[in-house]
């Protein structure tokens, strides 16, 4: 670890000033401190924002849900409104990390977490994300856990968050506050595909602070759930995952929200699957047909070819699980 200075802020104005001056925000610290220990991250100044008043979950006027950036993962998952309106979020969170980490990590930090690509986390390896221009060791290296969607020749790392997959599926908005004021960014635009600049991971401007994630009001009843496929039963990132939410009325699927995790450089929204579902009646055949479109455009690597088929099966299984549930 390299030396750094540390300040705590108690209001957003202080935070923004410190952020504008190059300070890195830290809340739960569950990702950043790990990466600092590995010297992957070497911030000079840490700005502890844990004391900011961003710890509320509120129902918006239109009936959506606004989750403050500093609400802990565990608190979010357990929140009665989250549980009743969007079980897919609770499930995604509860299948993440460990109880100890969920008690520390915040929602803002969760969507900001950095990839688990082992080459990114090993400072002696080439990584364009960590050191632009050095190359991507994973592209032709050990890449079983890497992305098959949204990749580039410069980066094939997955985004690790489960909650972000649920947020992407539900078309959430990220609320940002910066020196130039407040703005809302659709989740799909917030996390960036690597392209030729994998070091740029979020559409954040200098000093901007995440204040909340807002889930829009979606048609009800909405059935939803999250499936995470991984080698061990707990405490592991997804090989593949699927977040599914369906609005079924009169025996017909009126709206579908589907995204996949573990496969994309960003949480991977699946519009082709959604389109195949809308207007149809639930059936095993429909689930298989729709899920068959999940891996369109996949670009598998040497060790992760199995993810193409596994992704389709994961989506199919979760469509069935949610679709058949009462």
């Amino acid at each position: 670890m390299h030396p750094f200075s540390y300040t705590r802020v108690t209001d957003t104005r202080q935070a923004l000033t410190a952020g504008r001056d190059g300070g890195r925000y830290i809340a739960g610290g569950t990702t950043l401190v790990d990466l600092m220990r590995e010297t992957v991250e070497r911030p000079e100044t840490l700005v502890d924002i844990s004391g900011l008043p961003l710890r509320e979950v509120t129902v918006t006027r239109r009936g959506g849900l606004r989750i403050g950036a500093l609400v802990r993962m565990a608190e979010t998952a357990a929140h009665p409104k989250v549980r009743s309106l969007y079980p897919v979020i609770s499930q995604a969170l509860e299948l993440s990390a460990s109880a100890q980490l969920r008690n520390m990590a915040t929602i803002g930090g969760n969507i900001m977490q950095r990839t688990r690509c082992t080459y990114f986390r090993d400072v002696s390896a080439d990584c364009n994300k960590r050191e632009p221009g050095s190359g991507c060791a994973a592209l032709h290296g050990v890449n079983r856990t890497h992305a098959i969607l949204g990749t580039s020749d410069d980066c094939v790392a997955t985004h690790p968050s489960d909650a972000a997959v649920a947020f992407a599926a539900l078309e959430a908005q990220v609320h940002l506050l910066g020196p130039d004021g407040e703005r809302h960014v659709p989740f799909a635009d917030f996390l960036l595909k690597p392209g030729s600049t994998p070091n740029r991971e979020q559409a954040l401007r200098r000093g901007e602070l995440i204040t909340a994630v807002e889930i829009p009001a979606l048609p009800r009843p909405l059935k939803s759930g999250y499936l995470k496929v991984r080698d061990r039963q707990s405490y592991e990132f997804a090989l593949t995952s699927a977040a599914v939410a369906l609005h079924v009325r009169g025996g017909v699927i009126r709206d579908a929200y589907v995204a996949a995790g573990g496969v994309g450089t960003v949480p991977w929204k699946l519009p082709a699957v959604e389109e195949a579902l809308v207007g149809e009646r639930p059936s095993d055949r429909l689930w298989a047909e729709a899920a068959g479109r999940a891996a369109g455009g996949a670009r598998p690597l040497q060790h992760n070819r199995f993810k193409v088929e596994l992704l389709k099966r994961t989506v199919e299984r979760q469509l069935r699980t949610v679709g058949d549930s009462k």
Partner: protein
Amino acid sequence: MSPQPQAAVGAPLSRVDGRLKVTGQAKYAADHDIDGVVHAVIVESTIARGRITDIDIIAADTLPGVLKVITHLNAPKLAYRDNPVTFPFPGRRLRAFQDDAVQFFGQPVAVVVATTLEAAQHAADLVKVSYEAEEPATDLTRSPAEDGPPPFAQPYTRGDAQEALGSADVRMDMTFRLSRNHHNPMEPHATIARWDGDKLTLWDKTQWVIGAQNEAASAFGIPPANVRVLSPFVGGAFGNALRTWVHVVIAALAAREVERPVKLALTRRQMYFTVGYRPAYEYKLSLGSTRRGRLTAMTHEMKYETSRYEKFWEANQALGQMLYAVPNVSQNVQIVPLDVSTPMWMRGPGYGSAAFAIETAMDELAYKLHIDPIELRLRNEPGEDPSTQQPFSTRRLRECFRVGARDFGWHRRNPRPRSTRDGDWLIGTGVATGCYDVFLGRANAHARLDADGTVVVQSATHDVGTGTYTSMTQLAADALGLAVRHVTFQLGDSTMPPAPPQGASQTMASVGSAVQDTCDKLRQQAITLAIEDERSPLHGVDAKNVVVRGGRLHVKGDTARGETYRQLLARNNRTHLEARGSWTPEENSRFSMYGYAAMFAEVAVDARLGLVRVRRMLGVYDAGRIVSPKLADSQALGGMVGGIGAALLEHTVTDHRDGRIVNANLADYLVPVNADIPDLKAVYLDGEDYRADPIGVKSLGELVQIGVAPAIANAVFNATGRRVRELPITAEALL
């Protein structure tokens, strides 16, 4: 002497050191508070093969708090005498900064010593090493094997296996692949080194204090008597602390250079580089059988990885020779030298790897012949050791299977794959044999009975979580007729009476027999003192008729006539009685001695998603006398957990382009977590094996992991019809 009543032995005692551990008072290597200690951090190589051309230490050296940066450019030449005491992997052991050669990825190339850990860590990152790199070879399957067998391995033949294979009713040829596994104990390796003149004290994580003592002495060219090694608590090891690795020498070297005590703890990442691993294997097994399932031939061709600087060996031949009554056997073992560090024995070394091949093959044969897999094994059960023609000291594998089949509900099994479903899950069951040597070594102990009626027993043995403190306390308590709370067992100090390394499951039998001998002698002394003492109520009684219970000596069958140790010592003005004892195994036992197990597993496989979940496991063990049942259970359940890891999760992954281990951390190297561990049950056959040793125990710590992985793999086959001959079994193998 009259045999002592058994009270403590066999009782399900909790760990006597449990309170110390759960309250944080047990001091592990890095926990010792040594005056004036400074901190060392290792810088490791980022290439796997080549030369160091330059090391720039200026930035590190000038950082506040940094005392010294040691590299091969400024390190003193060390004696590195031959060390015949430590384990003989032929070759030239890795040395601390003695030349510019890089032999594997992660090799220590410098060490930074600073007054704070933070300064040392920061400075370590500022050391810039330049290399002339060569292309490394790290892939077992793509590199040539060495001509000739590795040390201690012999090409083995009995009968004519090729001929018998050719004429067999049924012949099967199979290739098994096992990935490299790391031990991953919870406690990372750590050493504190302090010099007092030319005397060295090491607080070290080790499974062999005397091994560490000798290795440090030979590295620095000082007499072993000048080195004291202390290791009272070890937080797991599984074999990787059986050897004294280079970081121990580095700690001592750094301490000598800066003239301060130095603490060096490896990071979790560094635990994947220099402290050994279970080597990757390629194991070709052919077997021939009659249609009725009598094995006629087995050939074993195995190769495994080692470093270029040492020839690693392990006991991978025994099972193929002695487990089943096969008339024709041939074995050929080869090592593949690679640009990697040297492997190290890991729980059930050799046996576990061979068992995966043999026990999966037996299941394949059983399926092919439509014979129940337990029945197939029983049909090939030998009456004597087929490799030596020796009688077995005890071999109760049949009973293990009989008891296990009943407890597990084996008769309900449908042998047809894919025949049992539970929703999306296919359910299957599998079985395998476990077997491990009864390995024995010479051990010594000392016991001192004080005037207050308490006793302290010492031996330079270890407790790496196995429960040695507790089991030895139980043995001593019974031998001396004392309550457990009046007995203190001490270990982990090289100045104590010598004991073997804590490996190969030999501690209970070997140290236990020495403790028994020592405490018997001490009790005898007390009895003699009493019966020769005219003032004792036991005066004149035949020693054979005196027993001790609850600290009181009395006539057998007449509890009224007797006195306590305290009364006896007080009256005789003795501050204490003491005895030294030992036990030496027979040089050439006429018995073949092994522990046996029947392992049962039930798995659920979501074949669509490639998920395997173990639902329950049962192990039935023929391990001789069980001294400490609760700790035996900890061993057995831990062995199953380790086996589940090896079967389904554990895999050290190397990037063969540059020899880098890519998952050198516990997030990416997967070991089972609680959620992966279902209902586990261990059953021990009641009985003793006094042919093995005077206390009737066999071996347990290794045995409990051997056979777990094949039982799971066989259950996966029963569930899915998919035969996986490669470990770990991952999603992609099942999709």
